[in-house]
């Protein structure tokens, strides 16, 4: 029981910190930190499924999160009718070629036996598909990008409810993870790391440069929301009367109300994923995963297909990351491909998992909260520290100005040091993995 008291203590300290921010800074800031803490926790859960359950080192978290973001655009944005009118047939041809290539490659993969012949054939089909796509689909993309480039210049989405994008983002991420895992799992653990690093860079490059799909660096703004808009609330009678009863200012309270709605949505997803993860961890499947992680050779000897289980868990973890990525884009209300930075989206999540406690889902959640909180609060703290340290210098001292200006970069270093310290002195994390005897 000692463990659970400690955990409750940790989580209450975390809640206290957020309340403190609410009191000292503002409730708006506190709630936006809370929302991102919730999303970070889900991402950390995804990484924990891969690392904590199976010891897989995924350095492509950024890419899977970005795929979730893309799903939000594809599902929720209204379709651009002009673009479809001029380029619909071209898109159909493109999709046709893509599907034909995929089906052909999959058929060959299924029908032939494993060996060089199969690999070569699959590759030839993929290359042929790529060339055909370039020949027939490139002109179409140009046409699409010419339609109102200032406001659209892309195909838009399906105009479906944005909540649908969350599972779709997960599926998208899972599909890519399957391909990467299929090639790299079963080889050295470093290879998976390097391959995921590569695929995440490629995914982000696609989002940045395929304007017809994601508007590229022009960003997609104004994603539909799953929650009410502030302006709508401020004009709604029930909301105004609620404000009156609470004695709150409608403008401030409307934005707090919106953030609360998001928090409820995110928290329910977090609880669902957490519940499922805990269920899985305690099931025979979870015991098998831990057995494989702790001793691959003997698990293999017991007849467990190590590579197949690794692939399974890698896909599952990526799905969770993809869902979180879609949620993040939904919260932002826009897709900004240039904001996907590996240090922020991949390595920060890793710090969360390591600090929180690898192998323990509650640990990953706590890590998500703690690290995100300090990641955000490190900037004002660092600035304050720099101002304090340099207060003896003249106001226009070049060194002082440089130090204050670079205070923002301090947090990278801080995160690195936190990761190194946690890995060395508390390798099991804040909430260590329990030994299920």
């Amino acid at each position, binding site marked *: 029981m000692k463990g659970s008291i400690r955990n409750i203590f940790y989580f209450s300290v975390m809640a206290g910190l957020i309340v403190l921010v609410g009191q000292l800074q503002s409730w708006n800031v506190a709630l936006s930190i809370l929302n991102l803490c919730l999303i970070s926790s889900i991402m950390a859960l995804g990484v924990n499924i891969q690392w904590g359950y199976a*010891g897989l*080192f995924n*350095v492509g978290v950024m890419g899977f999160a970005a795929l979730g973001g893309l799903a939000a655009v594809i599902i929720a944005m209204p379709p651009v009718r002009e673009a479809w009118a001029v380029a619909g047939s071209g898109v159909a041809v493109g999709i046709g070629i893509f599907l034909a290539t995929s089906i052909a490659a999959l058929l060959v993969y299924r029908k032939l036996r494993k060996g*060089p012949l199969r*690999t070569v054939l699959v*590759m030839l089909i993929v290359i042929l598909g790529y060339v055909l796509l370039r020949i027939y689909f*490139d002109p179409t993309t140009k046409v699409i990008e010419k339609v109102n480039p200032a406001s659209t210049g892309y195909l838009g989405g399906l105009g479906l409810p944005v909540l649908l994008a969350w599972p779709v983002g997960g599926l998208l991420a899972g599909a890519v993870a399957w391909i990467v895992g299929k*090639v*790299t799992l079963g*080889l*050295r*653990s*470093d*290879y998976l*790391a*390097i*391959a995921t*690093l*590569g*695929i995440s*860079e*490629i995914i982000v*490059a*696609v989002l*940045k*440069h395929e304007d017809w799909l994601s508007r590229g660096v022009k960003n997609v703004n104004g994603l539909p929301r799953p929650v009410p808009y502030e302006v709508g609330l401020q004009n709604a009678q029930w909301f105004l009367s609620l404000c009156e009863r609470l004695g709150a200012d409608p403008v401030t309270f409307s934005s707090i109300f919106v953030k609360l709605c998001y928090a409820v949505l995110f928290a329910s997803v977090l609880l669902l994923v957490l519940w499922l993860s805990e269920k899985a961890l305690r099931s025979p499947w979870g015991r098998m995963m831990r057995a494989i992680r702790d001793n691959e050779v003997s698990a293999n000897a017991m007849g467990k297909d190590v590579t197949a289980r690794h692939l399974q868990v890698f896909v599952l973890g990526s799905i969770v990351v993809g869902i979180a990525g879609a949620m993040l884009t939904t919260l932002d209300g826009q897709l900004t491909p240039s904001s996907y930075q*590996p*240090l922020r989206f991949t*390595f920060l999540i*890793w710090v969360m998992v*390591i600090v929180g406690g690898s192998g323990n889902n509650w640990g990953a959640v706590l890590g998500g909260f703690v690290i995100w909180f300090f990641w955000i609060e490190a900037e004002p703290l660092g600035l304050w520290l720099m101002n304090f340290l340099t207060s003896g210098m003249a106001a226009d001292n070049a060194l002082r100005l440089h130090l204050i200006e*670079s205070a923002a*970069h*301090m*947090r*990278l*270093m*801080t*995160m*690195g*040091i936190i*990761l*190194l310290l946690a*890995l*060395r002195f508390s*390798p099991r994390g804040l909430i260590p993995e329990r030994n299920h005897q």
Partner: protein
Amino acid sequence: MTEETLNALALLSNFVLVPAVAYGSQLALGALGVTLVYGILRFSNFAHGDTMAFGTMFTILFTWWFQSMGLSLGPLPTALLALPFAIVLCALFALLTDKFVYRFYRQQRADPVIFVIASVGVMFVMNGLVRFIIGPNDQNFADGERFIIKAREFKQMTGLAEGISIKVSQGITVITMIVVVAALFWFLNKTRTGKSMRAYSDNEDLALLSGINPDRVVMVTWILAAALATIAGTLYGLDKSFKPFTYFQLLLPVFAAAIVGGLGNPLGAIAGGFVVAFSEISVTYAYKKFANYMVPGDDWKADGLMQLLSTNYKFAVSFLILLLVLLFRPTGIFAGKSA
């Protein structure tokens, strides 16, 4: 050969051959560092890209200092003068990271993946230091002459319509690469320390039994890795420009080069560097003009750019090469360590 063909070849040399040789040399030097660390310390060092940035940062700082004192190498960039000092500082930092980070896990005989995660932590710290000291922006620190041969001079010399230009930085890159690689191989094959390093890489336990001092081997490895990273980073920075984030992104082609050649195999790293560089540049080059020279008559003029892959996706090339190697020959061309 007709003049058209010669023009086409000149065009290809100017835009593919020359840049790829220079880029390949830079990647080879970077991959050598990765492969050395992998061979001796047995983990993929994710901090290598940022070590390159870290070392290059010192080169730039010394260059600025020397420039302010009026020191220069005439036609050659001042950075060459600054390089040795930068190597010393970068090696010192690498040794510090080993003392405070990696040594502990070595003594624990930790799993390689723990080393990899620790190297991610080191990467964060180095990245933060670089951004803190020199900032995240582009820095151009090349001075001296810019070209060995200008395109215009080449055209005048040969009378062709297409010129080949060779930058001083490209010349220096290739010469430095040859000198460094020769020195490294001499060191690994002829000196006592080098031999003990290879022995340690081949079989750690046997090497320890034969009385090889592991601390010394590890120390020399870090010094060599830091030196190679600083040289590679400086050459890349002279050739293009210095931007911390670009150096982080170099991690992928550098790893691809090391894996293609076979992790832990120095010769393979060099070959891998050129394989990756040539594929990357030749796949992202637009062949339109080249095709128009090669195809006689006007009826067959190419209408597209004839570019296989846009330069935006140059990282995809490293990635694809990586996948191909992993699919067909997971040990790399020159059979490194894979299991």
